[in-house]
């Protein structure tokens, strides 16, 4: 709290007098995974099977909302067939094809021709990598001015010491500067094309590409949103959401939680909550029933608390204490595995772009659970 106040005061001072600009110090940064989750199908199955899927828990979660959603999805031809949006999306990606991808030390400009050729030739991981990396370049280019300003300011607490959150802030800035250096010589027009690659990869079933589209969208914080890209994102949102939930994506769970919150916001009545968006609500019920352990397990300690608080607030299912305990135990094991994986010299996107669902159609198993 104190540091927040000081930070604000420091910012005001810098705004009005520039006297808080202390220096330009940066710390070394380890690579971090921005999308923590189970990264292989085997791992997901292990985690899910370890959950307490007791009949009581399953019964508690079933209801009219879930059935209604299942019927709607069964009757919705767009969900069953996919790809009816008119987008020219090649479906010729080979799920087994994922040769090594460049790591985070590689200059993008140096590998763009090769990666573009690979993606155009059906390498889904290359298309995903291009989409994520080029969009990241666009983000970094757009925020360069802000980063230079923020990196030149340092804040101290009342004792004159630098607190942990300040170190974290400067560490993040240094990492962004390192990533930005990789974008040198990438023309802005190329960065813009990242959206097209990402859309292609997401439409074809790339998990990482769908997650980016679902959670952040195709836009950049400092750039004006492109209306067509916004429309594309929302036109695909529900399909990506259900597909990613089937694939065990915690990013999707986060989004589903938010959707359910919106539903409650708009449709709460004196008689209680009446979900008008049964899809979001139903997938949550289903997810809580069958995949709760995975969801919690794939989160860090802080996220776990958030999940559990959200679940309590939503009150969509009673979660048995045993299931919560098992989920926490799973979470600890998962965290250890994650730390080990992070130690590998592998880039975030190189790893996440290998995940591919073959199809953006929801799995039969997933919707069978709703019927």
């Amino acid at each position, binding site marked *: 709290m104190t540091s927040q106040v000081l930070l604000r005061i420091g910012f005001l001072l810098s705004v*009005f007098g520039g006297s808080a600009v202390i220096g330009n110090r940066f710390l070394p940064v380890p690579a971090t995974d921005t999308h923590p989750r189970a990264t292989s199908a085997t791992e997901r199955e292990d985690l899910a099977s370890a959950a307490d899927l007791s009949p009581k828990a399953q019964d508690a979660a079933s209801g009219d909302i879930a059935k209604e959603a299942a019927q709607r999805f069964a009757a919705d031809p767009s*969900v069953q067939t996919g790809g009816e949006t008119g987008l*020219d999306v090649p479906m010729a990606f080979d799920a087994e094809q994922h040769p090594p991808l460049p790591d985070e030390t590689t200059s993008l400009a140096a590998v763009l021709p090769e990666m573009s050729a690979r993606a155009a030739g059906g390498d889904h991981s290359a298309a995903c990598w291009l989409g994520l990396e080029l969009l990241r370049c666009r983000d970094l280019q757009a925020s360069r001015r802000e980063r230079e300003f923020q990196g030149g300011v340092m804040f101290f607490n009342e004792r004159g010491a630098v607190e942990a959150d300040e170190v974290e802030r400067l560490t993040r800035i240094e990492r962004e500067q390192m990533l930005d250096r990789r974008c040198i010589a990438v023309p802005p027009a190329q960065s813009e094309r990242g959206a097209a690659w990402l859309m292609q990869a997401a439409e074809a079933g790339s998990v990482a590409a769908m997650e980016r589209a679902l959670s952040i969208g195709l836009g950049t914080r400092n750039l004006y949103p*492109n209306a*067509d*890209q916004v429309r*594309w994102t929302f*036109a695909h949102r529900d399909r990506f959401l259900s597909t990613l939930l089937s694939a065990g994506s915690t990013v999707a769970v986060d989004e589903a939680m938010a959707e359910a919150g919106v539903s409650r*916001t708009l449709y709460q009545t004196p008689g209680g909550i009446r979900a008008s968006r049964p*899809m979001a609500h139903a997938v949550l019920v289903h997810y809580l029933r069958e995949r709760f352990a995975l969801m919690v397990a794939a989160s860090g300690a802080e996220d776990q608390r958030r999940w559990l608080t959200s679940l309590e607030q939503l009150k969509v299912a009673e979660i048995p204490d045993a299931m919560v305990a098992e989920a926490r135990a799973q979470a600890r094991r998962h965290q250890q595995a994650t730390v080990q994986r992070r130690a590998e010299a592998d880039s975030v996107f190189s790893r996440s772009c290998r995940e591919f669902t073959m199809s953006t159609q929801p799995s039969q198993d997933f919707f069978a659970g709703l019927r």
Partner: protein
Amino acid sequence: MPRVSWPMLVATILAILAGLWTGRHWPFAYPNPTAVEQTLPSYQHLSDAPHRENGNLDTELQVSRRAKRALPIVLPANAWQPLPPADLPLRASFALLKSRADEGDAPAACRLAAELQNCQRVMFATSQGQSSAGIDDLFRHCQGMSSEELGLEYAYLRQAALAGNLAAMEVYISGARLRVDLRRNADYLEVYSSEAARLAEVALMHGSVDALSSITFTASPTGGETMLGAALGWPYDEARWRDLNALQGLAFDFGDPSLSTLEARRKRLANYHKGEDHRVYAALEAKALKRFQMWFGGKAQNPFNSGLIGMLTEVGKIDFNPRCSGPYIADPMNQRRLDWSE
């Protein structure tokens, strides 16, 4: 040589023309945003992607994108009707307000936008478990409204802003109401970028502290984060940022009695710039004083007391009628441009 069925040909042409008229299926209306080369996928039909499941509100309301982008009708001020009492539940006043607003009654559009926005906030607060006498009162005030109706807020906010209501302009230019529901408001993205930039300047010239705050932040090194900042796309100009900050220092009293006099605010501003070259600071202050007189009439204001509706703590006793009844700036989109060299 295949035979041509004339009735079929005529029907096809009519169907194409109908598609063009609605603006929904014109295949070339929206250029490919990424200008892809031959190795990239084509997204010519991007804008035609249907909004499934939850995106069918527009279809239900039969509102085309073209209609959304069109400038709203504005009746002359002498044709505006008195607003209904503030304590009338929205369900009871909605049809009347909507009917009047759709005919071009700007205060009705303003009141409707404020009511709908406020109801969204109250619904959200209630769903988060917040409760107080004021919130509960407002929850009853908003009872019976559907999400489709609540979602009409942005269209009426824009109408009121373009009609020149200063409070509505302040909310509109921030872009916050556009961003809060991009799914529903995506069709307004194109018009916002040009309209908000224009309205922001006009509002500033008419003494809006809210516009000054928004524009000052936009001019800062981190200013691109807001919708207005992204729309303006200003390159960073340290001199402009300093100028606007100095103006804020003179124009904002934050409701603090110790800052009620101009001398007190000048002293505070000088303190911020302590150590600077005297002549440089004198020029900075002179420009700020001139703008303070020119745009704000020399009257300081509290930046926390602007916009169409206030803080949530005020709910329960909000009367939108005074702010929606005036003041209005005549034809704000065609006012003279702001000369930043002044």
